[in-house]
């Protein structure tokens, strides 16, 4: 007598697995929908996270510093006009021609004392090109009183600074500082308008001057402290970095917003860690839901699984059969979750959720718009789909392993 191994029965395995899936429709649907909601929830959480990060980055990068800046190599350590530089025309042209860079915005920035009457405040003077600056940061939209640069020798002041100094549009501000190479700087400027920036620190300290006027004030003709680079996304700018670095002179450095604002990066990182814990809890809840179903299913099928081994089916086929069933359930839930989360996230992406009450006030105070923003980021979906699917896969290990331990002794339970 011979005992040859047989590989037949795969069609039956697939058939049985498929029919088993629909044997307890309610349970299959409950399990699949827990996966479905898991994908939606985690995708929603993920897109909310990414949305808020993008907003934060946008606030500093897009609306203030640029995605990156070119500075004098000593400027990061000592932000003085002495560490400014004269950008060559060829550099500006090359930067403008770099793919991924939309704008190159020159700025001259330093500190000064500003006084009106007998009030004096330390201020940050930012010399900007009015048109370019407006294009980049939409500064004119932030004017709350007066106008956006009426004339070449006028300035814009932060709302809070103006209150502290007791000035309003039309008044004159006197500023003194130290210019290039230690010359003394002195100027009298009429106030064209007051702006309100979401960042309260800027509101309290910042004064905008037209670039030429700032150069004159600091006696730093043609000098800038930075060239702000703006692309249509951080990614596009990051891609362009190696090329930009080739154009730089020896005493110039390129700094990304991450390098300029490490605190924001840190905040994002720590927020990611917190969010990961929340997601892990969510995955755990989904995971145990699926596991519960699977454990129940295995207990119920004990008899027939034993029967199949008794009559000559290999346990490996049994394992495959159970794996198929759980995977189908997972795939169903994940695909439904993907399709279901598309409209939900699309809606939220275009309808940020306002944060009201104290939390909203608090956000405004620390310089954020009081909204929950959602990112429309396909990567987030795919990631969550994948995670939940892998979770299902992990859980299907349980029946898979159990299948190899099924006893062929057919009990009478059922």
């Amino acid at each position, binding site marked *: 007598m011979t*005992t*040859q191994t047989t590989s*037949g029965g795969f069609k*039956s395995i697939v*058939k049985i697995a498929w029919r088993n899936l629909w*044997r307890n429709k309610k349970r299959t649907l409950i399990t699949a929908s827990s996966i479905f909601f898991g994908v939606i929830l985690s995708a929603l959480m993920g897109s909310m996270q990414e949305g808020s990060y993008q907003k934060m980055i946008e606030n500093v990068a897009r609306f203030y510093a640029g995605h990156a800046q070119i500075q004098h190599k000593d400027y990061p350590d000592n932000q003085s006009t002495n560490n400014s530089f004269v950008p060559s025309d060829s550099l500006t042209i090359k930067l403008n021609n770099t793919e991924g860079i939309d704008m190159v915005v020159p700025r001259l920035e330093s500190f000064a004392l500003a006084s009106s009457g007998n009030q004096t405040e330390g201020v940050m003077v930012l010399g900007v090109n009015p048109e370019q600056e407006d294009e980049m940061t939409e500064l004119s939209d932030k004017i709350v009183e007066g106008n956006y640069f009426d004339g070449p020798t006028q300035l814009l002041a932060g709302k809070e600074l103006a209150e502290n100094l007791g000035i309003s549009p039309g008044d004159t501000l006197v500023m003194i500082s130290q210019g290039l190479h230690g010359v003394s700087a002195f100027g009298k400027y009429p106030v064209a308008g007051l702006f309100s920036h979401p960042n309260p620190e800027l509101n309290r300290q910042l004064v905008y001057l037209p670039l030429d006027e700032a150069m004159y004030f600091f006696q730093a003709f043609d000098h800038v402290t930075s060239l702000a680079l703006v692309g249509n996304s951080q990614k596009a700018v990051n891609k362009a970095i190696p090329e930009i670095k080739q154009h730089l002179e020896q005493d110039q450095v390129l700094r990304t917003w991450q390098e300029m604002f490490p605190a924001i990066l840190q905040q994002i990182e720590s927020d990611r860690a917190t969010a990961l814990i929340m997601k892990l809890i969510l995955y755990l809840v989904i995971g145990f839901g699926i596991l519960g179903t699977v454990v129940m299913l295995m207990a119920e099928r004990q008899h027939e699984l034993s029967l199949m081994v008794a009559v000559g089916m290999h346990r490996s086929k049994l394992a495959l059969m159970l794996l198929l069933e759980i995977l189908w359930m997972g795939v169903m839930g994940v695909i439904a979750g993907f399709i279901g989360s598309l409209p939900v996230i699309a809606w939220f992406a275009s309808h940020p959720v306002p944060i009201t009450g104290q939390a909203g006030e608090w956000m405004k105070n620390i310089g954020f718009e009081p909204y929950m923003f959602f990112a429309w980021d396909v990567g987030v979906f795919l990631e969550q789909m994948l995670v939940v699917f892998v979770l299902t896969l992990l859980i299907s290990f349980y029946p898979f392993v159990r299948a190899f331990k099924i006893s*062929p*002794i*057919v009990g009478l339970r059922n």
Partner: protein
Amino acid sequence: MAIITIKDLQKTYNSSQVPVHALNGVDLTIDEGEFTAIVGPSGSGKTTLLNIIGGLDDPNDGQVIINDTEINHLSRAEKIDFRLHHIGFIFQAYNLIPVLTARENIEFILELHGIPKSKRRLRSNELLEAVGIPEKADIRPRQLSGGQQQRIAVARALASSPRFILADEPTANLDSASADNLLTIMEELNKKEKTTFIFSTHDARVVKKARRVVTLEDGKIKSDSKK
């Protein structure tokens, strides 16, 4: 010719506090073509004996030799293949895979053998006919009566023409008419297909149909009579 030779079979269950000697030195030879009943009161060791013959359970001592193969020396996987190729099983109840129809349950075994669809169909038709319920071919077990389920189980056990069939109390859950009917079918197939049948029972009317009756008591053979 001997198809099964059993020598000094011992089986002790140690799961409870007191060890249970379910089989206490069983010697038995089954010849080809037999239609043999294993009888004895509940707890006498019938199920244990059939499970060990079928390679579903292992003895503590002794041998089961099927033709020239000592089944308990086979690996786990080899035992499965051995069962598939040489033994048909009928259990007391719930013999069928619930999500497959009657016909699919019969053909399931044939598919495990890798037999092509057209041949499977011929064989399942033949067996459905033989067990007398061809009209139930496409019905799932849940919608069959207990007797009909057992008849399909007989057909399934015979599907690949195994050397012998082990049936552990196949009529225990049936009323006497259905039990009688099932035994008649088994008897006919024993003759027609020349398949050896070994079935356990404690139903006197079923015992009457057997051509050989082996009586177990406390894990030992108490009597062995042939008609």
